[in-house]
């Protein structure tokens, strides 16, 4: 079996932790490691998604002398400096491969250092040896809710939290924006988003919301924790497609005891409810174009719903990544008629599958799209997405607008590749 990675190595829990924590505006990450890693992140994160790490992310600058003479004093000094200079609401002490290899006890540092500073401090100790980045997100979210969420003073009937939306989810800004808009149609307010553009106080008070909405599977464990400890119900589902979005709104409404106004939905469908057949002509039979989709289970299911179930396009190949409930996902995709379903394939395996199916359109992350070199129409739909910016927040694939945006993206991409009609 191959031990080399041709494309991207699997990002570890360390990345998941960091990508999660960057969603807390008034928190600061202090990474215990050498500065090279942060220096790399600063360049790459900015290019990927205009993420500015300044005053949000620091390195302890671990060096050889620290390993010989001890690292604790230096680390505590760095913690005190951050506490004093920036007064964050949370200091997240993040382990790296080096500190974990050296057996550095970050939990002990938190206990020792907490008394010296005003900011609360949490240690995230995976350090890159605790699995996939999705595990890192899951663990970080669990740690945040179990450490920060307080007993609620009361419950806000029309207030929900969103759990499992981080910068490691493709198109997160736009999807989040659309989810907020959809909820506003029910007159429901979004309180905390774990973890995107939130703050410590909002996380602390998230048990005041009536419902937790889990939009990516990484949020499930944190939602379960909140259910067990604060008696908060949760709904794990994401709105894709016209019918899918209506069903999602109805489920949310049912959970909150709100009746969905059919007139509002009709207005939305009139405005954003295009379906593929609206654009099909004799010259452009879009429904005959074959599609392959690669990504997280939420996105693969969501896009398959729009393109196949609601659009009638043949989705021949589905590649599901990092899915803890793969058999369930596989069952759904099979029921929708997807011919080949792969779970976490190697790059060679993915390449072979694409060559075997020869779809005209392929959705995936930047690396997948590079592997799909034979495919004519390539559309980004997964993370990492290093060759396309995503900072504008009105290009969702979720919700009613997401339905319209996805179809528009697809049709425009096909228009640039008229050769697909001859294939």
């Amino acid at each position: 079996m191959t031990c080399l990675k041709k494309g991207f190595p699997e990002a570890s829990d360390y990345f998941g932790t960091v990508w999660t924590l960057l969603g807390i505006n008034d928190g600061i990450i202090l990474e215990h490691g050498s500065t090279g890693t942060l220096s790399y992140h600063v360049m790459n994160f900015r290019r990927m998604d205009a993420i500015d790490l300044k005053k949000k992310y620091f390195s302890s600058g671990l060096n050889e002398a620290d390993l010989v003479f001890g690292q604790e004093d230096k680390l505590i000094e760095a913690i005190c400096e951050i506490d004093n200079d920036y007064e964050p609401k949370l200091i997240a002490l993040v382990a790296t491969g080096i500190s974990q290899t050296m057996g550095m006890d970050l939990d002990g540092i938190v206990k020792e250092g907490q008394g010296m500073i005003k900011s609360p401090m949490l240690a995230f100790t995976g350090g890159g040896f605790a699995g996939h980045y999705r595990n890192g997100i899951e663990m970080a979210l669990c740690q945040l809710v179990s450490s920060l969420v307080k007993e609620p003073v009361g419950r806000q009937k029309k207030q929900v939290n969103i759990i499992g939306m981080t910068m490691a989810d493709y198109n997160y800004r736009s999807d989040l924006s659309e989810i907020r808009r959809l909820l506003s149609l029910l007159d429901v307010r979004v309180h905390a988003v774990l973890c995107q553009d939130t703050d410590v106080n909002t996380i602390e008070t998230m048990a005041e919301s009536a419902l937790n909405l889990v939009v990516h599977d990484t949020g499930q464990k944190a939602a379960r924790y909140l259910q067990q400890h604060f008696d908060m119900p949760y709904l794990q589902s994401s709105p894709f497609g016209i019918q899918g979005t209506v069903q999602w709104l109805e489920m949310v409404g049912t959970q909150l005891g709100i009746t969905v106004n059919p007139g509002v939905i009709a207005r939305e469908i009139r405005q954003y409810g295009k379906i593929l057949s609206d654009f099909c002509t004799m010259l452009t039979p879009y429904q005959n174009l074959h599609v392959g989709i690669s990504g997280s289970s939420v996105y693969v299911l969501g896009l398959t719903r729009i393109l196949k179930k609601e659009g009638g396009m043949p989705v021949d190949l589905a590649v599901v990544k990092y899915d803890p409930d793969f058999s369930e996902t596989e069952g759904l995709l099979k029921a929708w008629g997807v011919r080949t379903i792969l779970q976490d394939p190697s790059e060679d395996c993915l390449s072979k599958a694409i060559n075997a199916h020869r779809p005209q359109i392929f959705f995936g992350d930047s690396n997948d799209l590079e592997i799909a070199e034979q495919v004519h129409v390539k559309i980004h739909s997964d993370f990492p997405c290093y060759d396309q910016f995503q900072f504008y927040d009105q290009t969702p694939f979720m919700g009613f607008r997401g339905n319209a945006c996805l179809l528009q993206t697809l049709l425009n991409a096909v228009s640039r590749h008229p050769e697909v009609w001859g294939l």
Partner: protein
Amino acid sequence: MERTTMDKLEIKALCLSQLDRQTRIEKTAMAQYPGTACGFRVVTNNLQSIKNSRTLLVGSDSCLFNARLTMKLCSMMANPLTDNLALLPVTNGDLIFGMDKKIRSAVDEISAQKEPAVLFVVTTCIIEMIGAELDILVDTICQEVSFPIVVIHTEQFTCNGPETGLENMMKSLIQLMKPQPVNKKSINLWGCIHNPFPGKSEIGQWLIGNGYQINATFPGQTSLAQLENAPGASLNLVMGSYGIPLAQAMESLFGIPYLAFEMPCTPEAIGDLYQKIANQLAITVDLQEESACLKKKIAHTKKMLLGKTCVLGMFHGMQTGRIFNLVELFAQLGIRVKGLLLREVLDEDWDDLQRLQLQGIDFPILQADNSIQSEAFINRLQPDFYCGDSAEFRDLEIPCVSLMPVLGRNGFEAVNTLLQLLLKIPEAQEIKGYRKKYLEKWGNYDLS
């Protein structure tokens, strides 16, 4: 030592007049942002320019993920780098049971795919920390394959920057070199970073114009054959201190003399450099025309910039070039340097520095290790513009002149480029201040 509070940050600056060989420029903070780039990154990027080579990176996923991502981003630039990386992630089990088997199997796999001209095995901190004996292992594997394998150690945690990794990379090239008959008209160019074609730089072209042939170059586009033939040169020209260990090793092993220098900035210093090279080669040099032309341009630029003030930073995150000679150039331009951001004083800086001290020129110098402190320092000094590595100073309201375009150039050409940059102060600066002030004033406005 001057200590000032600026935006709650203690800025620990040192004055030029206080600098002597015993003084170190103090760290500005324990919590570092962004910190210095690591050798791993710089080495990885540079190795891509060796034709038909492969680079096996052995390290944690964070290093490897970032390395691949950087390479992907670099593939979208002008002069895109070839991605010749093979990634070997270290797992928990590897830390306990070692990586020998994995590395051996990775080399087999690379060999089976398409034999590279040369394979570089690049380590990261984690490999260095566990003390994996890669050199011994690779020596053994080398007997079994038909291509050379070279280990490059790039441990960031033993130093405060990429220099050690770069030195190791340069020095490792000697393993590829083979004794050659010396061609007296042949010269190697080492250390011309940020220029994929060092032979096309001004110094390279000047040498060619004087009947010399550029033999091996690195960093820059090269091949295994060129590196193997490097001992056939009569002189090693080393443009940057990290190339010195290689030059020293070549001197000791092949008897090739070397001349090392950092890039000068004033017309006089550039003339001196050319004269030094000419003396070494026993040729005559006549660059009066170029020197006069540059002086004329300096005089013209001075008319536009006289009385301006600036804070000067480094050319790049890594210390390169004669920064105090750049201060002298600015003095010739009538620009007052109000402050300097610097990582360290290089050996070659002392003459320039002492000349400035004798002239009574003085200004605060801040360790350039943290951009937050650096930005506060620049804001406090309120110069007309900042000139240097500006990637991290995007919030500055004053114009920033990036020195990146100067890197990779040398001689008079480098200074001509700099003068062009200085005359073309970037536009659209006021929007930064407008945005910042607007958000400060209205950012917390009660929307209800």
